[in-house]
Each structure stands twice: as structure tokens, then as C-alpha cells.
């Protein structure tokens, strides 16, 4: 229990401390405290791996207090550390600590330094709430919390209105997904009378519940994941979220927050395994997203946007893995993706830092000489994501491809195409940014500099993990034991693994390598040898790709504009009519009425007498009629 307190409490403390007094402390103190508050939980969690590995059923549970009791069912604030949650914790705190360290250099000149770190710590706290919670309630708390932090951090440079709009867009789209999630939670609570994961899974495994119910819950939970993990149709916020500082993009939108949806599904794998309709749905959505995002990313010129669409696409890969029932594989890809995507984003941040805030790859080029550390680490990340043999991304992607192949041929082909596109756009970015001639007129080439150590050390650490991270889950044909999947098996017993013949596996492997080589050779020829630089003038399908397939514009037209019109209409009615009639109209009305009334008091005695008599008559009459 004390471990849990440390893991959860330290980031919270960091948030409060930096938030309250960070303004008055020197930046180095703020940065170190924030980073320590994340690094220490990492080591604590790491230390628990030993205990967890010895006993398959070992878990640390802590029930803090009962939040509320509904219908005699207690909803409690309780946490649990088991193999799944500790793994997620390691990723979150590990990558998080590295990014904290990086940010001390990247945000050095920002006046909101302390605020940034306080928000970052708060984000880590919420993310830990999400993964360490032992019931849906805590998960939901963390879910909303990270949404809030995402909003705060995307719009961190709040003076720019566009950034604020991007933050709002992220929050609103998240909320739309949350509606589905909430409905799912309500269904779970009303039908199963519990929100605890263990009880819920037991009930599902034990009894036979209607298929429709399970499918409905699964789809509703997936809608929540759609919003958080940027799948179609709720993905458009992620590219816009690049308005935030690069460390934010690295942490939240690459490594952690967007993986919350994946975690949700993995945690409830029994539910999803029994809902074939829902998993089929997830599969196709993931496929479509992977494909669409890759196509769009192919024609983007802002390096952060390319990485953003790459994230969306890779998340699609993970959902495809979930859709074919390969839950542990999805977790594996999540892990490797955290490594190399964080690396890529931090590398991009380093480039931006060295290029004095230039983000467009058309105005870069030839940076290899000037930023060697960034160059080599970035290369490592690019190779990893494209599936260079024996790097981490190769193993994870190959597992997913194999699982997809055993599910069906068409999904496999589509996924393979997406992998090809992934390689192409990544290497396109790499070559255009780092090779070729320097194309920037505003910032002198001599001023381009490498980033300080505090930024490059995380890059190097992450590069090591990106290269060798695959070793944690080597496939069966290489080694039998010591893999992540095996380790998680007691927790995640379901792993739909249609056995593929040995020869088929080799063919699949070969195809994956072939895809990688194709991408590399194509881009090398086009972008390196022929030195092609992306321009603005694209025609036909390519321009559609560059303009993001007009999805944002469609949303604007179909959803946003009508709501705005409705708002204007109501404003017109409310202010226009009601205000004008009731508030402003009262005065002329009163004037007219009082002018009429004035004539009654004309001083004439006869009139007064007449009024008196009429009053008497009326009173008598009323008395007669009604009483």
C-alpha cells in the first residue's frame, strides 16, 4: 500500500507544490522536483516487478475509502497493482520522467515554466489514476483528468487564440467520446451491479448474458476509446493538438494519454472477447484510421503534423490488433510505440529548438552536420517505426501483421499497405529534414545548433529502447520464454492466436522486410538522390491528401455550423424578442398605460362620484356571483 501511496502521491505532490510555490523558486529547482516526482515512482514500480514475477496471482490492492453508495452497492476509491497496471505505470513514469528532463531544457525560456511542470505532474497523476484504478470509477476519474490536462497543456501558450481553439477542440471531441463511455458505464452498473474490474469480469465469464448487451457495452466503451485514442471519426483533434509545446505532444499525444483507450479495452478483454460484433467493428475502424492517417501524413509539411498523423495511424494498428483478439500484442506495440514516438517527437522538438522555432520541413534540410545527436537518434526512431529488422517496431508490427493474417486476408493486405505508407512518410520526413541543402532564409545556417545535454540524454535513452526494446517480446520462432506475452498471460488469458504454419510465418516475415525496403529505397531515390522538396502545388488526389480529405471542413459544415446557427437563433429569440419586448418594451407600455390612467383623475367631482358608484356596483355584483 505504501508503494501505491508513493506512486500516486508523488506526482500529486509535485503538482500542488509547483503550482503553489513554483513561481518563486528558481527554474532548476522546479524542474528537478517535477522530474524526481515522476522518476521515483518509476523506480518504485520497477522494484515491484520482482514480486509480481514470482507469483502469477500477486497483486497489491488498496481500498482508500468508499466514494459513494448507490443502491447498496459501494463505489470505492481503490487501486490495484497487477502485472498489467504495473507495466502501464512503468511506461508512463519512465517515458514521463525522460520527457520531464527534456522539458527542463526545452521550456527553459518560457515564463510559464513552473506552471508547465505543475500541469505535467498533474497529468502523470491522472494517468496513474487511470491505470492503477481497480474499478471503472477511478478509471473514469483519471480519464477526465487527463482530458483536462490535455486541454491545459495544448492551450499552454494561451495568448494565441488559435491554440486555445485547438485545446477546446480536443476537449470537446474527447467529451463526445466520453458520452459513449458513460453510457457504457451506466449499462455496466445497472446490469452487473458493480464497477470493479474483477467482479465484472467474473460475472461475464460465469454467466451467459445476452449477446446484444455485451456488444452494446463493448461498442459504447469503444466510443469512449475513439475519442481518447483518436480513431475515426473523432481523430481530428490530435493534429490540431500539435499547437501545444513539443514535450506535451510527446508525452500526451504519443506515449500515454492516447493509449488510455487501448488500456481500457485490454483491461476488459473478457468482455470484448465475448462480443464478436464489437471486435469486428473495432478492427475495421482501426484499419480505416491507419490507412487514412497514413495517406494524410504522406503530404504534410509540418514535421509535428506528420508525427501526429503517424500517431493516429499507429493507434489504428493497435486497435486492429485488439480487433483480431491479439490483446497482448497490442500492449507490446503500445510499449514500443511509446519508445519510438516519444523519441521522434522529442527529436522533432530538438530540431525546432535548433531551428529557432521553424516547424516546416520545406525550410529545413542538411541538418545532419549541425545536429548529429539529434540526427542519429531520430534515425533510430525512424528505422524503428518503419520496421527495420530486429528493431523494436519490427517485432511489434510483425506480430500484429501475423495476427491479422490469421484473421483474414483483406485486413492483412490493407494493414501491410499502411505499413508501407508508414515507412514512406517517415523516411520522407527524415530525408527532407536532415539531408539535402539548407533551405531556410530567416535563420542563418551557422546559428543552427545542437540541443543541450539535458535534452539529448533522453533522446539517447529512448533511442536505446527503440532499438533494443523488441527483446522483451521476441516471437516464438526465436525464443520460447521471457516474453511479455507470456508474462501477461495470467492476466490476459485470451489471446486469439490461430496457429500459422511455420512456412507462412517466414513468408509474412519476408513481406514485412520487403515493405520496409521498398519504402526506404523509394524515398531514398526520390527525396535523397533527386532532392525533391515538398511544395505547395499538388494536384488531384494528392491535394486531397494534403488537405486532410476535408474531414475538418465536413465536420464544420455538418455539425459546427448548424449548432452556431441554432445558437444565433436562440440568441435572437432570447435577447431580441424577450429582451426587447419585456425589458425594453415595458417602459413604453407603462407610458401608454399611465397616460390613459391620467385621464381618470381630472378633478371632476361627477366623475369621481360615478366611479364610486360603479365600484360599489361591481363589488356587490362580484359578491353575488362568486359567493
Amino acid at each position: 500500500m505504501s508503494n501505491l501511496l508513493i506512486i500516486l502521491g508523488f506526482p500529486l505532490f509535485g503538482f500542488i507544490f509547483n503550482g503553489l510555490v513554483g513561481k518563486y523558486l528558481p527554474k532548476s529547482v522546479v524542474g528537478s522536483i517535477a522530474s524526481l516526482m515522476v522518476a521515483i515512482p518509476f523506480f518504485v514500480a520497477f522494484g515491484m516487478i520482482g514480486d509480481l514475477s514470482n507469483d502469477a496471482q500477486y497483486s497489491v490492492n488498496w481500498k482508500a475509502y468508499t466514494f459513494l453508495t448507490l443502491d447498496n452497492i459501494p463505489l470505492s476509491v481503490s487501486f490495484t497493482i497487477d502485472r498489467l497496471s504495473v507495466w502501464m505505470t512503468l511506461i508512463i513514469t519512465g517515458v514521463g520522467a525522460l520527457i520531464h528532463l527534456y522539458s527542463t531544457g526545452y521550456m527553459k525560456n518560457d515564463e510559464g515554466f513552473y506552471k508547465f511542470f505543475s500541469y505535467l505532474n498533474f497529468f502523470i497523476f491522472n494517468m496513474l489514476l487511470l491505470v492503477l484504478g481497480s474499478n471503472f470509477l477511478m478509471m473514469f476519474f483519471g480519464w477526465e483528468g487527463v482530458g483536462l490536462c490535455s486541454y491545459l497543456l495544448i492551450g499552454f501558450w494561451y495568448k494565441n487564440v488559435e491554440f486555445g481553439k485547438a485545446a477546446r477542440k480536443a476537449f470537446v471531441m474527447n467529451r463526445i467520446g466520453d458520452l459513449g463511455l458513460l453510457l457504457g458505464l451506466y449499462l455496466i452498473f445497472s446490469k452487473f451491479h458493480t464497477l470493479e474490474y474483477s467482479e465484472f469480469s467474473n460475472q461475464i465469464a460465469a454467466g451467459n448474458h445476452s449477446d446484444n448487451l455485451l456488444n452494446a457495452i463493448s461498442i459504447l466503451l469503444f466510443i469512449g476509446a475513439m475519442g481518447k485514442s483518436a480513431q475515426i471519426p473523432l481523430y481530428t483533434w490530435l493534429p490540431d493538438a500539435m499547437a501545444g509545446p513539443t514535450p506535451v505532444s510527446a508525452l500526451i499525444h504519443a506515449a500515454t494519454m492516447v493509449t488510455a483507450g487501448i488500456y481500457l479495452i485490454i483491461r476488459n478483454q473478457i468482455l470484448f472477447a465475448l462480443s464478436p460484433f464489437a471486435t469486428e467493428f473495432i478492427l475495421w475502424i482501426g484499419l480505416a484510421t491507419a490507412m487514412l492517417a497514413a495517406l494524410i501524413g504522406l503530404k504534410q509539411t509540418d514535421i509535428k503534423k506528420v508525427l501526429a498523423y503517424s500517431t493516429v495511424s499507429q493507434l489504428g494498428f493497435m486497435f486492429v490488433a485488439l480487433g483480431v483478439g491479439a490483446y497482448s500484442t497490442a500492449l507490446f506495440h503500445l510499449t514500443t510505440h511509446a519508445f519510438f514516438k516519444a523519441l521522434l517527437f522529442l527529436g522533432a522538438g530538438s530540431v525546432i529548438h535548433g531551428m529557432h522555432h521553424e516547424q516546416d520541413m520545406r525550410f529545413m534540410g542538411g541538418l545532419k552536420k549541425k545536429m548529429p545527436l539529434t540526427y542519429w537518434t531520430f534515425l533510430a526512431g525512424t528505422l524503428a517505426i518503419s520496421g527495420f529488422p530486429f528493431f523494436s517496431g519490427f517485432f511489434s508490427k510483425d506480430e500484429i501483421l501475423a495476427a491479422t493474417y490469421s484473421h483474414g486476408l483483406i485486413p492483412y493486405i490493407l494493414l501491410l499497405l499502411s505499413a508501407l505508407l508508414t515507412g514512406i512518410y517517415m523516411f520522407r520526413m527524415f530525408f527532407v529534414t536532415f539531408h539535402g541543402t539548407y533551405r531556410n532564409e530567416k535563420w542563418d545556417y551557422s546559428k543552427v545548433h545542437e540541443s543541450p545535454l539535458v535534452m539529448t540524454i533522453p533522446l539517447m535513452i529512448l533511442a536505446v529502447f527503440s532499438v533494443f526494446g523488441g527483446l522483451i517480446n521476441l516471437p516464438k520462432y526465436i525464443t520460447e520464454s521471457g516474453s511479455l506475452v507470456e508474462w501477461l498471460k495470467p492476466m490476459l488469458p485470451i489471446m486469439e492466436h490461430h496457429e500459422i504454419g511455420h512456412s507462412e510465418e517466414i513468408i509474412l516475415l519476408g513481406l514485412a522486410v520487403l515493405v520496409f525496403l521498398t519504402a526506404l529505397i523509394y524515398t531514398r531515390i526520390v527525396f535523397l538522390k533527386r532532392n525533391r522538396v515538398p511544395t505547395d502545388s499538388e494536384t488531384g488526389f494528392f491535394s486531397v491528401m494534403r488537405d486532410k480529405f476535408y474531414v475538418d471542413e465536413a465536420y464544420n459544415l455538418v455539425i459546427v455550423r448548424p449548432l452556431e446557427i441554432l445558437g444565433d437563433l436562440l440568441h435572437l429569440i432570447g435577447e431580441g424578442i424577450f429582451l426587447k419586448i419585456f425589458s425594453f418594451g415595458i417602459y413604453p407600455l407603462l407610458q401608454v398605460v399611465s397616460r390613459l390612467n391620467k385621464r381618470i383623475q381630472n378633478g371632476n367631482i361627477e366623475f369621481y362620484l360615478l366611479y364610486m358608484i360603479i365600484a360599489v356596483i361591481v363589488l356587490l355584483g362580484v359578491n353575488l356571483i362568486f359567493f
Partner: protein
Amino acid sequence: MMNSLFSLPLPFLVLSFITILCALYVVTSKNPVHSVLALILAFFSISAHYVLLNAQFLAIVNLMVYAGAIMVLFLFVLMLLNLNKDSEPVKSKIWGIAATISAGMLLLVITAAFQKSGVAIYKGSADDIGLVKNLGRVLMTDYLVPFELSGILFVSAMVGAVLLGKRESNSESLLDKGNS
């Protein structure tokens, strides 16, 4: 009621007739002096009603006070101000209609109120209840305080009337000016 109109005792019928006729003449006559005289006649008939109703003393008092004193006062003021048919202001026809309607409505409402409510059973009273001896006894025992108070009222009215009628030293006297 109309069927039984002629089953009413003759005195009542005649007296009511006279009263109503005189009242109508009071309100419609152009000459104010005629109005006063008609009103005196009306008071006479009302006093006769009082006699019929076993209130003999009240009948005489009515004659003395109302017809004898108050109406004489009215007549006196009329003479003082020298009002006659010529200087009588006339109201427009609309007022006539309005007044008729109002009076009619009032009649209607009160009649309706009466119809709605029930009336008690007749209980005859002693024959000599209206004689001054009995009335005096009641007045001096049960109604002593109002009796004294009415005395005070009279005094204040007298004082008020005299004060109001007092002429200021600078204003012209009515007799001096005559009919200007």
C-alpha cells in the same frame, strides 16, 4: 309582484306612489325650488309610512327635523343665492344615460342580492313600541353614549357652519353685490 300589486293595502299603495313620484320630480326638475318643495312632499309621505309601521314618534320627528328644519335651511340658501330656473346648469345627454344605467344596475344588483338571501319569519312587535315613552326609555338607557355624542356632534357642526359662513373683512358682502 305585479300581480299582487293591487292586493296591497290601499294606504301603502297610495303612499308609495306619491313618494316615488315626488322623488322623480326632485331629480328631474329644472327649477331647484321645485325640487325642494317636491322633496318636502316626499318627506311627508315617508312620515306617513312610518306611521303605518308603528313608529309614530319617528314620523313626527321626521317631519319636524327633516321637512321642518333641514328643508327650510335648503330653501333659505337657495333664496340667498338667488337660484332659479335660468341659472341651472345642465348636463349633457351622455351623463343622463350613464346615470340611468348606473342607477339601474344598482337596482338590479340589490334586488338580486335580496333574491338570493332568505328573509326571516315575521315576528310582530308590541303595539306601542313606537311611542315616545318606550323610545325614550331605550334611548336613555341603552343608547346613552351615542346620545351624548350626537350632542357633541351638533355643537361641532354648529361651530363649523358658523366659522365657514363667516365673512372675511376684506371680501365683499353678498348683499352689497346683489346679482352681479
